[in-house]
């Protein structure tokens, strides 16, 4: 039998509850032992202080808030930051043929047999249509692969070519989708440091759809999503159920966080829905603040994180504008071919807005059949 259940069975399930007297005495004891609280002093037109304090009050301050003076640009709680972003989001007009994002997407992996990480970056535009008749498109360009630890790379002889394990996300020269069912997975592929040319690929299996695997939504679905944060969470949890039961509440919350971010980043979500997502994230237990940060593009913002087992998802929000600046998934613990702090994925968002323009697709197209329709199995990569 399960050892944890057995331990629980050792203990009484319902010990005697505390009497009303015990509870009342405990409540009294809680505050009676405390030193007198700080009281607020209010400054009245320079004529002296209006004191609400009792004798022995400590920590006088002259500020109306009663707290220590905060420097400008103070670090907000994650909830305050997300709620501010919600307010900003719902004020933006959501009109346009496409929700357009331009960003630098990166990931870090160990090449086979080496002790340093490689960082691979792709410049990526995603065009997600507001019309159910248009396809979503990605236009990408491999920016290159660099070693994260230059000293270790130099000791290795400064190679410009490496063997990596294909894991669907880090294949040779092919950004985004893996080939038909499993091609490239777990096989050794050769990658080079060189940048590549622009190409287009579908970003949804059918017109009006954007995203893949568990994160895909149609225009109609997005329009019908509840804009009350509580109802939205219920709806997304129902969607998550497709991946089976057996997820703890904490796991589900972490997946909700990740799904919410996808809705914010590159889905054609109406303003009211964006605001609802921010508010839903603000109410998730386990959302933690990570303070002020500067991202790889030199922009400052405040970071918020949510951890899921061995991975932490972080987002950076600009408190001045409420804009989402970047996202990243960080390994929390070392493991097989994994280093603590390794950036498993990251997105540096340069632009995210509605546009009336249409994408001008480059000549090279990938993952399309001869008839120009997305290859069905091509883009089963989970998570985008």
């Amino acid at each position, binding site marked *: 039998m399960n050892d944890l*259940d057995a*331990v*629980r069975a050792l203990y*009484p*399930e*319902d010990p005697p509850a505390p009497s009303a007297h015990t509870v009342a005495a405990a*409540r009294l004891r809680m505050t009676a032992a405390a030193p007198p609280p700080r009281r607020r002093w209010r400054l009245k037109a320079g004529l002296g202080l209006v004191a609400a304090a009792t004798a022995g009050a400590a920590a006088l301050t002259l500020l109306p808030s009663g707290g220590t003076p905060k420097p400008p640009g103070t670090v907000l709680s994650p909830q305050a930051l997300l709620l501010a972003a919600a*307010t900003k989001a719902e004020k933006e007009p959501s009109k346009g043929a496409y929700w357009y994002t331009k960003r630098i997407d990166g990931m870090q992996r160990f090449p086979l047999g080496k002790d340093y990480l490689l960082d691979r970056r792709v410049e990526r535009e995603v065009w997600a249509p507001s019309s159910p008749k248009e396809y979503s498109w990605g236009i990408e360009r491999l920016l290159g692969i660099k070693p994260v630890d230059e000293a270790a790379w130099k000791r290795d002889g400064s190679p410009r070519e490496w063997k990596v394990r294909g894991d669907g996300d880090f294949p040779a020269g092919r950004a985004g989708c893996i080939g038909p069912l499993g091609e490239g997975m777990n096989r050794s592929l050769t990658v080079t440091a060189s940048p590549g040319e622009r190409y287009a690929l579908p970003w949804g299996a059918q017109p009006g759809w954007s995203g893949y695997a568990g994160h895909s939504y149609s225009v109609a679905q997005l329009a019908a999503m509840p804009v009350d944060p509580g109802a939205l969470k219920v709806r997304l949890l129902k969607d998550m159920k497709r991946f089976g039961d057996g997820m703890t509440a904490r796991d589900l919350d972490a997946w909700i966080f990740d799904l919410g971010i996808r809705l914010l980043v590159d889905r054609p979500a109406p303003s009211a829905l964006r605001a609802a997502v921010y508010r839903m994230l603000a109410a998730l237990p386990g959302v933690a603040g990570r303070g002020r940060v500067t991202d790889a593009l030199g922009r400052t913002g405040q970071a918020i994180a949510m951890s899921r087992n061995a991975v932490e998802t972080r987002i950076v929000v600009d408190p001045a504008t409420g804009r989402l600046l970047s996202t990243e998934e960080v390994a929390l613990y070392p493991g097989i071919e994994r280093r603590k702090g390794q950036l498993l994925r990251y997105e540096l968002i340069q632009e995210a807005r509605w546009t009336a323009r249409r994408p001008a697709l480059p000549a090279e197209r990938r993952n399309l059949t001869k008839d120009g329709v997305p290859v069905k199995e091509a883009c089963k990569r989970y998570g985008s």
Partner: protein
Amino acid sequence: MIAPPEAPPGDAGVIGRSRDEPELFGAIFDAYFAEIHRYLARRLDAHTADDLAAETFAVAFRGRDRYDLSRPNARPWLYGIATNLAGRHRRDERRKLTALARVGPGAAAAGHEDAVAARVTAEGVRGPLARAVAALPAGQRDVLLLVVLGGLSYEEVAVALDVPFGTVSSRLNRARKKLRKALGDTDPLLDDQEGASR
């Protein structure tokens, strides 16, 4: 510029405001006292729990200025305080476990727990199991009982005990190895699923 920050939701909001308006902390007491008392009463006994649960909230109240407002849920914090206080009663705890080894658990719970309790008794493992729990190093027993009796997740245990997440996993793994030995399981692959729930 954006509007001044709103109060954080949940317990953190209450605790934050209670710094200047102490009476608001009563909401934290009301929400969690019974649960903390139950945890302590199961680990030790009801009488000791009366005292320690009250002390938990007194300590929490006195320390509310230092509460991390980025944590909306105060449960791990409170369980951490309660566990620290219970740590002063380790000898009593070991004596209690020895007593548990001999008798049944008391008021029988219905359903699943009842079946497990019956099986634990029937297989004669109550004694070895209780002794195994009593023999655990304090850190491992605290992690084990926060999970089993408190229903905390690993992350919450890490917050409660102020240790890294990895420490929680490794302590629990070590504890479970010893428990499985006491249950007579020699197959390390047997039944690895989490059985802990409230």
